[in-house]
């Protein structure tokens, strides 16, 4: 179908147009995918895997929200409900959101942004994906043989004494942890060793600063989850007694171990999302990002500070007042870099030239929703209010606003942004706008009422609830169906675009990072020439070329390295 777009002036890196020979069709057959070393293919496989997990986790969510339509039993027993919320959490966190942006968009975009041919350790990358598949299989097996009812947090002693399939699920999470570690390790090495000529640390796109900071957390925190889960398995299988008070153990020690990973983990979730935000806001405001260094350093600050605050999940656990005080104080510190980013993004929009394309709609949604999510964290970081709010729906609402309203929304923005690059197709802008609106409205209806329920004392993980909470729950359930509709529509138009979408130009949005300097989709070798980096936010270096329907560089040689091979 490819209408020939002749190699135009100003696009030095494209020696043939269209997508006749690109990474998608280079090498045929399922084995060429399963055994690929190409980061782009690995990224796409991850995308399919992770979006499937999101769907699975979403099914569990819809089931549990349906059960909560009435105060008593609606469609399932208490035991089933307990499994529903556990699986919703475990699938969403371990299979979807932790690998999430880094494994999909990170894998695809990182080497391209560096003008490189691949990540530093492609075999490790493939191993990472296979580990994901293995871990996911363990999780699926666990679900099939009876699932887990401990909550995704697996608190002892309940998790060491319940009869459900805890071992297979925790082994699954353990394996997934290694998938995450290897991804992070790979990204750190790639960013350290494979930056192109001209790309000093502070000329790197902010997306990479975010991915890098995330990778630091992945590498340092995940091993602790590993040992924690291993101890849990040992406790169940062998009775090592380390968390069992009857054997001299301490159940609260488990919480310290668990949250030492799981708190940094939430920054594994949000940092890549913030990384995407910097790209979207800059590109769609037509302006250089504001406060580059502050945004870059704030990512590192968040990564480091995230290790110091885990105790704020345990204010009521019986730990000492001094411990509580220290963790509360440190928790507030980690709020500041996030606020700095939000203000810098807003400043980027000032005097910009703003386009409300789908990616930008998601970026704006992020600002709205993440603001709520982040600000509600203040209530929880503060000791006296947290005592009241801990383990209520207020917490559930808070983390959904940051994880869903933050990470997922930015992820969607990133998918829409890089979709043309990954698949070489444009999707329907109209349907994308409708979907974004439904998701925004549905999300707020689902989760805002939960703040009010929570502050009124509605505890979380409750199958039955007191009648007075019914209106809140029903509003929330209605919202969840609107959300589901929005996602179904999104799946529809995205899949449709793969077969019927307009062919995408190399640079549909006018961004200045290097991935836009190659074809959409890229050739399997990424770039024909050695690349050199300029300022990744110098949007004035680009102009719109109507014959292409996209943007080109005014001076193409500015991104080519000064070595041989330039035509």
């Amino acid at each position: 179908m490819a209408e020939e777009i002749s190699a135009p002036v100003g696009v030095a890196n494209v020696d043939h147009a269209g997508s006749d020979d690109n990474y998608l069709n280079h090498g045929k057959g399922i084995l060429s995918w399963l055994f690929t070393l190409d980061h782009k293919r690995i990224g796409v496989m991850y995308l399919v895997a992770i979006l499937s997990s999101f769907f699975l986790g979403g099914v569990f969510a819809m089931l549990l929200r349906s059960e909560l339509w009435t105060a008593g039993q609606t469609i399932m027993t208490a035991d089933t409900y307990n499994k529903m919320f556990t699986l919703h959490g475990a699938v969403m966190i371990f299979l979807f959101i932790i690998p999430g942006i880094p494994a999909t968009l990170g894998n695809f975009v990182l080497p391209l942004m560096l003008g490189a041919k691949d990540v530093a350790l492609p075999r490790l990358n493939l191993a990472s994906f296979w580990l994901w598949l293995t871990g996911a299989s363990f999780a699926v097996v666990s679900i099939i043989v009876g699932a887990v009812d401990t909550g995704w947090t697996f608190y002892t002693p309940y998790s060491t004494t319940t009869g459900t399939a805890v071992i297979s699920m925790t082994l699954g999470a353990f394996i997934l942890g290694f998938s995450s570690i290897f991804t992070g390790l790979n990204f750190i090495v790639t960013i350290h060793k494979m930056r192109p000529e001209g790309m000093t640390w502070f000329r790197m796109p902010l997306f990479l600063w975010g991915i890098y900071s995330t990778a630091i957390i992945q590498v340092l925190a995940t091993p602790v989850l590993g040992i924690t889960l291993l101890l849990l398995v040992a406790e169940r299988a062998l009775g090592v007694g380390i968390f069992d008070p009857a054997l001299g153990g301490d159940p609260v020690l488990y919480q310290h171990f668990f949250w030492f990973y799981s708190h940094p983990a939430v920054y594994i979730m949000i940092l890549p999302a913030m990384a995407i935000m910097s790209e979207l806001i800059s590109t769609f405001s037509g302006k250089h990002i504001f406060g580059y260094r502050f945004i870059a350093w704030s990512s590192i600050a968040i990564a480091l500070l995230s290790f110091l605050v885990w105790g704020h999940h345990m204010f009521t656990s019986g730990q000492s007042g001094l411990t509580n005080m220290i963790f509360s104080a440190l928790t507030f510190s980690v709020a500041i870099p996030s606020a700095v980013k939000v203000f810098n993004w807003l400043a980027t929009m000032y005097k910009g030239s703003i386009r409300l394309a789908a990616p930008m709609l998601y970026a704006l949604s992020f600002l709205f929703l993440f603001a709520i999510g982040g600000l509600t964290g203040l209530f929880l970081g503060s000791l006296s209010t947290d005592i009241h709010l801990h383990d209520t729906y207020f917490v559930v609402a808070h983390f959904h606003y940051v994880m869903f309203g933050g990470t997922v929304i930015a992820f969607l923005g990133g998918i829409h942004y890089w979709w043309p690059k990954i698949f070489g197709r444009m999707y329907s802008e109209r349907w994308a706008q409708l979907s974004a609106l439904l998701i925004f409205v549905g999300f707020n209806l689902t989760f805002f009422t939960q703040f009010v329920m929570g502050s009124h004392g509605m505890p979380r993980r409750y199958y039955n609830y007191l009648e007075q909470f019914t209106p809140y729950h029903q509003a929330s359930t209605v919202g969840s169906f609107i959300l589901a509709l929005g996602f179904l529509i999104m799946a529809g138009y995205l899949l449709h675009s793969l077969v019927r979408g307009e062919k995408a130009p190399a640079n549909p949005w006018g961004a200045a990072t290097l991935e836009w300097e190659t074809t959409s989709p890229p050739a399997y070798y990424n770039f024909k020439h050695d690349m050199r980096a300029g300022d990744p936010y110098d949007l004035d270096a680009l102009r719109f070329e109507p014959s292409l329907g996209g943007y080109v560089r005014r001076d193409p040689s500015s991104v080519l390295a000064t070595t041989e091979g330039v035509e």
Partner: protein
Amino acid sequence: MTATHFGRMLLARFAMMPDPEDGSFWMPPQVSTVAHSVDWLFNFILAISVFFFVLIVAVMVIFVLKYRRREGQDAAPSPSHNMALEITWTVIPVVLVIVIFFFGFKGFLDMATPPANAYEVLVEGQKWNWSFTYPNGYVDENLHVPVDRPVRLVMSSSDVIHSLYVPAFRIKMDVVPGRYSKAWFEATEPGEYDLFCAEYCGTSHSDMLAHVIVHPPGEFEPWLEKASNFLETMSPVDAGRKLFQVRGCMQCHSMDGSAKTGPTLLGVFGRSENMADGSTITVDENYIRQSILEPNARVVAGFEPVMPTYQGRLKDAEIMAIIEYLKAPEGAPQEE
């Protein structure tokens, strides 16, 4: 709460001064000495949050409208960094969070320090009920306290981690096996308030409810006196049922026919049971008494000898009451 009441409450409460007695848009009634400071801080943080949220969204919307892309017009040149701005919007949040932290910490210290003359109640959490032991040894399934008197709870769990939460008092503390945890409160308003388990503990986590009954001045002592003498005031069957529920029998012995850690006691009296040593017995008063005092002497076949003894923990009259309860035609638990 009906939908109309909810709607009216929304309208009436959100914008106006909250009525502490009935609660506000966000909070349940303030019925303890610390509730006021917790709510105050909540509202303080809320005010700051609303301010910044409105600021962020307004700026965003204004910029989108004002700087919407126009054909042929590129973005006007503007700086991409400004140190003064960065410092300002870093320092102001830092100051605000320090203030919030300070108030939170101060409020917490009050919540963590019980006064010296607190009335002490022992609390036991188990899957899936609460039992409260009063200083005179009486055990009840609800928490009765006098108004305007500090009450200190000394809590432990017999199985997994639970958490005692009374929203109206704004208190919460985890209840952990193998150790004691403590909480305190002083109720300021007579009435009946919900007590929840706030740490997921299995199947009936959401049914692990109790009530806090705050007695008006002068009414607590008489209540305790009367309740402690339940053996005199209640029929033996009712007293036995009460003991069965609050003294832990229910945890291992169901009254619905299902075998748990121990055999079901539905219809047990007069039943023929096969013992682990091969003999067969008919359950009578003597066997029940022996099972309570020397539980592992004669164990029903198919069950482990794990029942703890109640020697010294149940009075003879209480054992009699339990026997009477088990004899009753339907020994099913009373509907609450």
